[in-house]
C-alpha cells in the first residue's frame, strides 16, 4: 500500500463572492521512495492539495468529500493535536521563498532545534548537536557556524537547504515540496532538486513535488499528475506522460513549455483560461478550452480512462 494515499478528495472555499470548488475528486498516491509531481498552472489546485494533506488550510476551506491516509492513518479524521504531532515528524513540508519561510529573528539552528525538541525524544543538551547534524546532512558547509546565523545572513539557496534540513530533521516518511525552487537561480535550483531527490531515495521518503514547471517535474519525478481547475486530468509515469500525453490539456501544456530542443514555431498557447470555480461547472472542466469537445462532454459523468495500469486520464476521448 502506498505511503500517502489521497482518495477522491474535494475541497471548497467559502469566500465573500461564493463557494469556490477548489478541488474535485482528486486521487493520488505516493509510494515509499517515490517522487510524484503535481503540475499545473496557477489556480489549478495543486497547492490546495498539498495544504489539505498537511492540514494547513485556513478556516475558509472545507473538505467536502474524500479521504487522505498516511501510513494507514486517516489524516482527515485525526484530532488536531494528533495531526500536529504527525507534522514535522511523519510528514514535512518545504515552501517557496525560503527566506520568508524562516523566522527572521531566530537563529536557523535554533529553529531546527525547536522541531527536534518537539518531535525527537532527545535530551535537551543533545538538541544542538542534532540540529548541526541535520544541517550537515543537507551538505551545508561549516554547519556549526551556519547554525548560529539568522536567515537574512544566508542566501536563498542556503535558506532552502536549512528548510530541507528542518523538514528532514525527524526523518519523515512523507515530504511535500511546494514549488521549492521558484525564485531561486537555475544553478541553485539544480542543486536543491538533486538534494531533494537524493534524500527521498536514501530515506525511502515519499515525496510530492508541487511545481508549475513541467520540465522540472519531467527531470525529477517518477510519476506526474497534471492538474487543471481542481481536477487531476492525467496521471502517468514521467516518460509515458511526456512521450504519450493522453489528455488534450497535458498535450497543450507540453507544447507551451519551452524545453532545450523546442522551437518557437512549436510553442503553442492554450486557448481560453481557467473556468470560474464558483457556480455550476461541467463534468469536464477543460471542455470550455478543448477543441475536441463533444456535446456529451458537458453532460454525462466524466469517467477515468485507463490506458495502462499506471496511466490514467480523465477524458472521454483521450489522444492516442
Amino acid at each position: 500500500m502506498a505511503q500517502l494515499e489521497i482518495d477522491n478528495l474535494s475541497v471548497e472555499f467559502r469566500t465573500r463572492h461564493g463557494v469556490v470548488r477548489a478541488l474535485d475528486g482528486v486521487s493520488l498516491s505516493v509510494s515509499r521512495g517515490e517522487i510524484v509531481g503535481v503540475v499545473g498552472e496557477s489556480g489549478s489546485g495543486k497547492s490546495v492539495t498539498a495544504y489539505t494533506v498537511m492540514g494547513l488550510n485556513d478556516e475558509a476551506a472545507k473538505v467536502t468529500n474524500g479521504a487522505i491516509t498516511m501510513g494507514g492513518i486517516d489524516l482527515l479524521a485525526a484530532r488536531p493535536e494528533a495531526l500536529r504531532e504527525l507534522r514535522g515528524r511523519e510528514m514535512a513540508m518545504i515552501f517557496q521563498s525560503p527566506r520568508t519561510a524562516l523566522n527572521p529573528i531566530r537563529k536557523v539552528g535554533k529553529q531546527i532545534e525547536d522541531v527536534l525538541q518537539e518531535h525527537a525524544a532527545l535530551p535537551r543538551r543533545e538538541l544542538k548537536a542534532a540540529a548541526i547534524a541535520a544541517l550537515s546532512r543537507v551538505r551545508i558547509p561549516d554547519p556549526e557556524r551556519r547554525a548560529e546565523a539568522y536567515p537574512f545572513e544566508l542566501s536563498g539557496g542556503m535558506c532552502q537547504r536549512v528548510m530541507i534540513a528542518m523538514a528532514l530533521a525527524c526523518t519523515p516518511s512523507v515530504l511535500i515540496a511546494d514549488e521549492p525552487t521558484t525564485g531561486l537561480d537555475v544553478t541553485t535550483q539544480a542543486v536543491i532538486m538533486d538534494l531533494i531527490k537524493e534524500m527521498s531515495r536514501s530515506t525511502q521518503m515519499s515525496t510530492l513535488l508541487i511545481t508549475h514547471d513541467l520540465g522540472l517535474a519531467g527531470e525529477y519525478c517518477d510519476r506526474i499528475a497534471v492538474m487543471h481547475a481542481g481536477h487531476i486530468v492525467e496521471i502517468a509515469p514521467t516518460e509515458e506522460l511526456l512521450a504519450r500525453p493522453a489528455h488534450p490539456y497535458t498535450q497543450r501544456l507540453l507544447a507551451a513549455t519551452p524545453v532545450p530542443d523546442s522551437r518557437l514555431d512549436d510553442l503553442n498557447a492554450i486557448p481560453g483560461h481557467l473556468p470560474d470555480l464558483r457556480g455550476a461547472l461541467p463534468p469536464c472542466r477543460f471542455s470550455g478550452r478543448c477543441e475536441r469537445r463533444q456535446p456529451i462532454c458537458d453532460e454525462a459523468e466524466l469517467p477515468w480512462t485507463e490506458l495502462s495500469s499506471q496511466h490514467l486520464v480523465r477524458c472521454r476521448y483521450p489522444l492516442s
Partner: protein
Amino acid sequence: MAFVWKRLLGTIPSLVGVVVLTFFISRALPGDPAAFFAGPAANAASIASIRATLGLDRPLPVQFVSYIADLAHGNLGRSLTTGQPVLTDLLERLPASLELSSFALLFAIGIAIPMGVWAATRINGGVDHACRAVVTVSAAFPTFFVGLLFVYVFYFLLGWAPQPLGRLDEIAFSPPPRVTGAYTIDAAIAGDWPVLRASLAQLILPAISLGLFALAPIARITRAAMLEALSSDFIRTARASGLPVRKILMAYAFRNVLLPVSSVLGMVFSFLIGSNVLIEQVFGWQGVGAYAVAAVIASDYAAVQGFVLMMAVLYVLLNLLVDVFATLVDPRVRFEG
C-alpha cells in the same frame, strides 16, 4: 555592546537639533523677549536695559555661544514666579511627573499588549471587538476630558477617589523622606504603608486617564502586527513543523511583534509627555507639566523654555532606550545600524 555606543552617538544630531531649535524658539522668532519680560507698562528705555542684561543686543552667534555655555553649566535661567533657577525647579518636580507617566505606561502596556495579542488570535471574537471598541473610544477622548470625567464620577458621584488635589493629602499625611522623589516608591522604602496607600489612591485616577490615551496606539499596533505575524510564511512553516500552539504564539509570532511595538513606543512617549501636562493640570499634580502651565499663564518665559528643553532631552533619551531594546529584539536592526 558596540551598537549601544553607536545608538548613543546617533542621538547627538537629535540633541544638537533640539538645542538649536530651542534657541531659535527663544531668541530668533518674532516677538521681542525683552519687551515681553519688561511687561506691558515698560517704556523703550527699560526695554533696552533689559535687552542688555539679557544679552539680547549682542549678535546672534554670540548669543548662541553664551546660550550653549549656560546650558553646559546647567543654567536654564531663573524663574520669574518662583525666583529659583529653572533647573532646580524642574529637577524638584520631575520625579512626580515620571512617577505618574511610568504608572500610566505600565497600565497602558499591561492592558494593551495582552489585549492586542488576544484579539489577533481570535479575530472577530469578543476580545477582538472589545479591543477595537477600546482603541476607537480611547483615541477619541482628550486626556483632560477623561480626567475630568473620572473626577466627576469617582470623586463627586461615587466618592471612591480622594479629592483631586495633588499627590498626597498633605493635611492627613506628610510626604515620605525623599529618596527618589516618587512618593509611592519613597513610602515603600520608608515602609510607611498608610502613605503608600494614600499616594497610590491619589495616583490611580490620573495614571489611568493618562494611560488610556497611550493604550490605543499600543493595542492597535500589537493587534495589527500580531495579525501580520500570524499570517506570515514563517508561522506557516512552524505549523507545518508541528510546533505546539503556545510556542508558535510566543516564541514565533509574539517576538516578531515586539519590534513594531517598540517602534510605536517612541510615539507613545511623545503622547505621554504631552498629555502629562494636561493631566497634571486637571489633578493638581505638582510635576513639571503643572509647573510649565503655571509658567505659561504667568508668562514666565525662561521656565517654559527650560521645560521644553528638558522634555526634549528626556524624550531623546527614552527613544534611545527604545532603540536599544529594538536592537536586542531584532538581529536585523543590529546589522543595519
